[in-house]
């Protein structure tokens, strides 16, 4: 029998991923990979020179994103991706700096940095993969775990109120805030595109399945079951009042673009202010 000739075509992600690091470590059914695909797509559609994009991650499952993207990429310490990205952006303002990390990293241990970067309107884009728990360490309760959901350190269910990420982001001063699920690939892509194009601090929260830990512990089924849940329970409500976006256990998920406003970025505000006060004596950064 004649041997079948198979032509291996290049992966469409080839120019974007470090193929020498694939396969990745994420579990089957995990949503992080689909968010990375959306990110790649957004960069492609934005026609940004990839040499000018840097990704900074913290620690955790999503923290591994920096290691797979073929960009200048930094895998830093737990919770500190945002201040690291702040330094990177201020050192080289021409860069598009994207923080790609999880809910525990950005809003648990790193929460303080998040609110201050939003307050300053630091020109960085945050892609936060929210899987409702600390997955890398074994499914512990997080600042995002819905009430009553089970976690390995909340074995009788969670009784702590979780953060609503869009509400927090808007209150702290973010200029662009959106929430989607990993089912909304095209919408995630579009939001990332919009956020990249917008100067200022932007947050895209993407709710993703954690099949191995959160779903298994709560007997929510496999990845498909979770996507089905997202499909059934998502309500798209652009411009919704961010005070109404709490997520309850297996309750409805209000998604959409909630905030899209203008405010001077940290560097713009600095330049404008210093020119006003010091006039010609001010030496603009990089001059």
């Amino acid at each position, binding site marked *: 029998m004649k041997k079948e000739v198979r032509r291996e075509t290049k992966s469409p992600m080839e120019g974007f991923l470090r193929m020498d690091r694939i396969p990745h470590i994420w579990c089957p059914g995990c949503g992080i990979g689909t968010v990375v695909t959306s990110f790649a797509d957004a960069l492609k559609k934005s026609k940004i020179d990839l040499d000018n994009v840097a990704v900074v991650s913290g620690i955790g499952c999503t923290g591994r994103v*920096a290691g797979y993207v073929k960009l200048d990429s*930094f895998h830093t310490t737990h919770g500190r991706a945002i201040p*690291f990205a702040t330094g990177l952006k201020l050192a080289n303002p021409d860069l598009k700096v994207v923080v790609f990390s999880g809910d525990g990293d950005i809003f648990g241990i790193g929460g303080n940095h998040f609110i201050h970067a939003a307050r300053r309107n630091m020109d960085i884009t945050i892609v936060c993969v929210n899987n409702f728990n600390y997955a890398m360490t074994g499914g512990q309760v997080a600042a995002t775990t819905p009430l009553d959901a089970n976690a390995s350190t909340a074995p009788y269910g969670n009784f702590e109120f979780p953060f609503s990420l869009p509400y927090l982001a808007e209150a702290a001063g973010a200029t662009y805030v959106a929430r989607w699920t990993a089912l909304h690939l095209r919408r995630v892509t579009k939001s990332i595109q919009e956020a990249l194009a917008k100067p200022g601090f932007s947050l895209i929260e993407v709710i993703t399945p954690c099949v191995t830990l959160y779903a298994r512990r709560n007997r929510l089924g496999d990845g498909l079951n979770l996507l089905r849940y997202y499909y059934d329970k998502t309500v798209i409500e652009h411009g919704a009042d961010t005070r109404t976006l709490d997520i309850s256990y297996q309750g409805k998920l209000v998604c959409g673009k909630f905030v899209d406003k203008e405010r001077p970025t940290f560097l713009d505000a600095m330049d404008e202010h210093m020119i006003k006060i010091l006039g010609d004596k001010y030496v*603009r950064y990089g001059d």
Partner: protein
Amino acid sequence: MKADPKGVLTGSHYIDGDYAIAEGGLAAGCRFFAGYPITPSTETAERFAERIPYVGGVFIQMEDEIASIAALIGAVWGGKKVMTVTSGPGFSLMMENIGLACMMETPLVIANVQRGGPSTGLPTLTGQQDMMQAKWGSHGDYEIIALSPDSPQECFDLTIEAFNLSEIYRVPVFVMTDECVGHMHEKVVIPPAEEIEVVERKWYTGPKDKYLPYKLDKDGIPFMAKAGDGYRFHTTGLTHDERGYPVINAECQAETIPRLSDKIRDNADKIIMTEEDQIDSAEIVVISYGITSRVAIRAVQMARKAGMKIGTMRLKTVWPFPEKRIKQLAKKVKAFVVPEINYGQVVLEVERCASGKAATYHVPHLGGWVHDPNDILKVIKEAAK
């Protein structure tokens, strides 16, 4: 290369040590400062904030010291020379990311204007209690460089030296001063820019697809690239190979981690700066650093007047420790006397190097003030018995 004149405030100034640190940083080419206010170090941040709009750069007051050091590391990978200043509690908060800087081989400078500890301790009063923390504070095995100025002039000089060493060896370098030197006003002479040697970062300039972030150069130190240069590199706090890719096994650990220490240990002779006086004829050597070395002089003068043969050794570099020299001296002298403003830190290193060949005496002071020279003299006399 020579310093960029934009940052050099040439002339004679009457300023304190904290200001001199800021001027040293600016002269060395530092154009990014991220910090958080903490007594007794705030004047350095204030000075930098005041001066940087005339020089061209960024001062940012972060939300805490963890954010400060994280921003510094980010800014280095964005291409800047960077520094911050802090004191004990802030230094403690920085420790995890100091480890990240060591692991990523990120050059940066941290000045620690020490105060009495532990905890909040003596915010406004002096101490030298962070000397061991500077060496061992972050987890894991690594080496750093720590310098100890004894005057505002040396705050300026050694801050420039700290930047140069950090660039040569790609490590965090600490300027371990203290509240006394930090708040002491003295004459500080800032030379013309063309008389200040600064070390430029060793940039990679090879083909884009060939860059390996942790491939060693002949001197054992890898080339650096910055984000945006088109090399599209990766770096991580995980144990990594020369591509910067994580490799989580004992073999890679055994290959990567010793190198972080050896690049300092193997070059210790080049890094270490000490100042010796009347050491050849000495029976007793007083070893000290920072403000304490200025107090010890008085005790040494009194002892010499009484006919005792006293040598002195001042450590301008505390880490790496001048162990070779102290081992040598231990064979010749009767005893070492080590005054320092803590309950026994650098003295332990002296004792280790003396390894029983010479006696080692500690003169502790718990902080809040400097030693009474008579207390040091008393111990010198005891050592001479």
